[in-house]
């Protein structure tokens, strides 16, 4: 596992922390590496645990590293199974406040179901990086607001 540190943005608040995960048994990691760099260049802290973390490991790392956002890439059609598991585990571990963002090959018809589970974004290929970064920032801000209130 490694952490890529973002540039300091001169604010007292710590940078947004994103766990970038590719949980399916699938090694097509081109997109995930592009995102890791883009998030880092946008000043975020990126945690990438390498290939094939299980949903359990993702939730463990998210809790240990106190991340704001989990961004999950799925390309092989197993999104409905894996996202459901991650969301259930987060709730069971009382970490339901972490934002979960999806991306990859997710057919439009599955998006509403994912949204209802609380998985947002669900970006397909060709989405501008800026769109994804903005969404991560929005979700992270929400998470922090909620955490301050709680």
């Amino acid at each position: 596992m490694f952490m890529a540190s973002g540039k300091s943005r001169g604010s007292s608040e710590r940078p947004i922390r994103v766990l970038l995960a590719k949980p399916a048994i699938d090694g097509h990691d081109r997109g995930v590496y592009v995102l890791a760099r883009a998030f880092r260049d946008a000043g975020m802290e990126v945690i990438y645990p390498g290939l094939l973390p299980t949903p359990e490991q993702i939730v463990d790392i998210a809790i240990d590293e106190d991340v704001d956002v989990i961004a999950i890439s799925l390309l092989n059609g197993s999104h409905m199974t894996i996202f459901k598991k991650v969301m259930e585990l987060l709730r069971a571990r009382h970490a339901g406040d972490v934002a979960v963002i999806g991306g990859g090959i997710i057919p439009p018809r599955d998006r509403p179901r994912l949204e209802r589970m609380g998985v947002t974004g669900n970006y397909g290929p060709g989405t501008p990086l800026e769109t994804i970064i903005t969404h991560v920032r929005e979700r992270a801000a929400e998470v922090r607001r909620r955490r301050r209130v709680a």
Partner: protein
Amino acid sequence: MAAPRVGSTAVGGERQAPASSRLKYWRSKVARLSKAVDSRNEAYDSWEKRVLIPWQKGLASAGRLVYTSADSAHDGGADMPGMYPFTRGIYPNMYAGKPWTMRMFSGFGIPEDTNSRLKYLLKHGETGLSIAFDEPTLYGVDCDSERAEGEIGKCGVNVTTLKDMEVIFDGIPLDKVSTSMTINAPAIILFAMYIAVAQKRGINQSRLAGTLQADILKEYIAQKEWFYPPKAHLRMIRDMMLYSVNNMPKWNFISVSGYHIREAGSTAAQELAFTLADGFHYVDMGIAAGLKVDDFAPRISFFFDSSMDMFEEIAKFRAARRIWATVMRELYGAKDERSLKLRFHAQTSGYTLTWQQPLNNIARTALEALYAVLGGAQSLHTNSYDEALALPTEAAAKVALRTQQVIAEETGIKDVADPMGGSYYLEYLTNRIELEAYRYFEKLDELGGILKAVEDGYPQREIADASYQRQRRIEAGEAVMVGVNKYQEEDEAPINILKISRKAELAQKRRLADVKRSRDEAEVSRALDRLREAMRSETANLVPHVIDAVKAYATIGEIVKVGRDVYGEWKEPRII
């Protein structure tokens, strides 16, 4: 079977030629080629000054606008197809003699689904089968493992035990077809299963024809499917190489693959360089294992990407042939012409397909297929327009096949060998991409060879850099993807895509439970113990032991676990 001839068996850094003389060899190539590629072209310079700049109202151009005979010289050898160094193609008459093989890759769902698809293809005249496996199979995960949930049959057919392979090939004459299997980390297991199915049906293994992808180096570089550290997998490749050289004259034990390297984001030159470097490593391994180069090199074939940049792709294919022939002859002393001929399968690029406006992908695939043909491919797979979204529907796969037929039958392209040869620009690019590849060979040997470089993450980082740069060019609008960052449309109507039901998962789990109930558990453990022992001995050939294990119906996961116990796992080096 004949006892494998095992000489020195190491799979690491041993070389035919010592590292220093290899480096010298690469450097001499770089020096010679850079003279051809980088030399000034006086005719161009004077034309630029007298004609171009005045025409552009005083502005010079960013790059070269035209190429001439002065740019395209090469002293590589005879300039004819079917002759060394085969730049213009490996056969004298190329497609006028025999058109390329339209080899469409398929496999989905449960073994029964794939069996009927294969039978359908055979009925329609296809003799070359090409099988795709699902992710659990590729990663050596049994179908009843929690890890496999949601992934059974999604990206290919699922195989957990020999029983599944028996169903896939039921009723298919294994002694009459050739079967290509896209399988890497568990290649030795699927290889053993294929042999076992034949043996159980009384077909001698010597009559089996086919190709295993099996190229593990590109897995560490690009596709990232592995079980063990590189040396353990390389040893299995060596064992398959020895086993097929000794027992299976029609079996191609490796298809050295650049496709995945390119799709992971590399440039064309990187694809070419890393793939050929992998190929040379396998040659080194065969020699270290005691084989003569001409005994096994003719069975090494290649697999390249065909992407969107027309001339660069055609140049890449031509340079690949020239480099392979030259190095095999000059550095490895190969004499058999078949060792010098680089045969390759091509696939159109999946990366260039867009999720947006998917019908545009038909145009992209047609162009890429054309480049592969202009580049002299031996076989070709064309992607379907819906593959950015899901596995292809039958209708989309048919359009992809028809695209090849249109190119073959309607364009006149088959009549002449290497029709683009002699284009100043193409010849220049062929030289340039060849030069870039030699520069990489030099760099890789400076780093201690391809294996060491891969273990340290060097090619992986080069690819991640290239991929990120390309993405930034797309974001900036400097590189265009129609429908993605230009000519976008709102509210596109969805297209029909293939949906794989969960029935496959349930059926596979049921079959595995039946197999586990009926197999002889004591025999399974005995076979796995023998395999474990063999793995601990560096000189044993693992293939017969894996055949015994699969015949006892050990699962893919059980066999992989034995390897993990012996070899441990592998975590990739940090890439960014």
